[in-house]
């Protein structure tokens, strides 16, 4: 069963199309990484799926229901980000108690253990927490609520390296014990790639690709070799990225389908695999060149 189905989903924010004819489906019980540059539309997509925002055009279905204003969707979906706001009247312990009342599948034991592990104090107030602590607490709510669709929007904002590691590990363990559909948006694909089954890359509100992690690893190859040979080779092919290294050596990234690899090796081109996170960065470059060109 598909948990999420979008067809030609468009969302206008002012003059800009935050989402532009986006069509995706997300299957039940998968962990999907939602990857994209700043402003690619990740948060917009997640907020529409959570039922907070409505779509401008197109169709969106979560559990076969239109999510906006749907209680059914709200009861089965949780959206976790660093903007979650709780009344300043409630202590952290109160918030956990309230969450327990709202989410039927709430795991109070897990919440309590994580709460202790990350050394929260029961009488702390949410707005007084530091950025990293806030994210950590929100993560506890996201995990313990056990919603059939759990969405984390940049969940590790402000967390230190060790808490981030713990979070990914906790997420994976809880997912294995209680499978559900999880979407994580992040800038740090390298951190979460071991966790993910699928990767959805969006760019300027459009789907770039939606591949399984294995497919993504096979998507492109890195080629290093003499510049003229590389240029000759990649002449009519889709080059994702290329960079001059050394005097007449070029490194370039190209889609694997186009390249007869054995032949390349014979010509002295060094073929290397490319990390998924690097690939995503290369794919979503806005233009050729880099920040250095700004200062020229």
């Amino acid at each position, binding site marked *: *069963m598909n948990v999420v189905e979008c067809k030609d989903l468009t969302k206008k924010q002012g003059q800009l199309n935050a989402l532009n004819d986006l069509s995706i489906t997300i299957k*039940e*019980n998968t962990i999907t990484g939602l990857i994209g540059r700043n402003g690619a539309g990740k948060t917009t997509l997640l*907020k529409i799926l*959570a*039922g*907070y*925002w*409505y779509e401008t055009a197109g169709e969106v279905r979560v*559990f076969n229901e239109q999510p906006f*204003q*749907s*209680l*059914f969707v*709200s*009861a*089965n979906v949780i*959206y976790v980000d660093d*903007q*979650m*706001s*709780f*009344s300043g*009247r*409630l202590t952290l312990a*109160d918030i956990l108690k*309230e*969450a327990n*009342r*709202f*989410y*039927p*599948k709430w795991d109070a034991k897990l919440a309590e253990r994580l709460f202790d592990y990350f050394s929260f104090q029961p009488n702390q107030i949410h707005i007084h927490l530091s950025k990293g602590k806030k994210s950590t607490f929100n993560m506890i709510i996201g995990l313990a609520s056990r*919603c*059939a669709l759990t969405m984390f929007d940049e969940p590790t904002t402000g967390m230190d390296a060790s808490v981030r590691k713990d979070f990914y590990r906790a997420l994976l363990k809880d997912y294995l014990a209680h499978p*559900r559909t999880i979407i994580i948006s992040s800038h740090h694909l390298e951190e979460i790639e071991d966790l993910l089954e699928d990767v959805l890359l969006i760019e300027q509100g459009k789907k770039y690709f939606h591949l399984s992690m294995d497919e993504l690893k096979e998507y492109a190859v890195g080629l290093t070799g003499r510049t003229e040979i590389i240029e000759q080779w990649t002449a009519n092919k889709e080059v994702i990225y290329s960079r001059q290294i050394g005097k007449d050596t070029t490194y370039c990234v190209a889609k694997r389908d186009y390249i007869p690899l054995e032949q390349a090796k014979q010509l002295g081109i060094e073929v290397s695999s490319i990390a998924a996170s690097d690939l995503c960065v290369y794919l979503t470059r806005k233009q050729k060149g880099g920040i250095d060109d700004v200062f020229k």
Partner: protein
Amino acid sequence: MMSLNKMSLGVIVKKQFQYKLKAYASVFSSLVVLQIIAILFSLGGNGSSGSYNNNLSINTTLYTNTSVLILTMLWIVIHAIMITTKAERENGFTFVSNQLSNNLSNALFLLLASVLGGITTILASFLLRVIVYFFIDTNPIIGTGFTYQLSDVLIGIVAMIFYLILLGSFGYLLGMITQLHRMLPVIVPVLVIGMIITIAQTESDVIIRLSEFYYQETNALFFILKILVTSILCFIGAILVSHRLEARR
């Protein structure tokens, strides 16, 4: 097949209402503080007059709980508007909810606030009397010699509760309308005040008739009906207005 949570609107509204009781506890503590301040204001007397005739001089001081009444009315309007603000609405969307459940739980909360406000306002008038009797004026106080019928007190409380309900739902509708666009928090007050001034200048009796419509209704049933219908219309308006409001910007 995954198991999905199914929760009815009624259950969610109840849970949200309970959440709001905790989250908005300060609304009630502010009521207590406010009424104490109002009582202190009233201790100076709301009006006094003196007359002198031959060798007889009469000084009267009027003690009323009008300040309590007016401040409580302001209190309900302000809080009704405040719970429609963006920050509060976002708090309301932290857990399972939609606009309808959020509006309904707010309505229940305002209803409870009106009931508590109504009861305390009327009881405050007795407190005022007691304070004046014991601490301020040793001279005869008119109105101490007789006892109130319980039914009179109850009628006072019920009337006050319904005035608060009316004002609360009106404030709530107004607050919700101002949430539609970021210019409206400026425009709406200007419009409302401007309209009142314009109406006053044209010497039209709209306001008088409007207040007579609610204030001078002597038939209890009609009085309650008028206010209930108006309040329910206000809330339906607020629900319709907020239907397209997006949560969690």
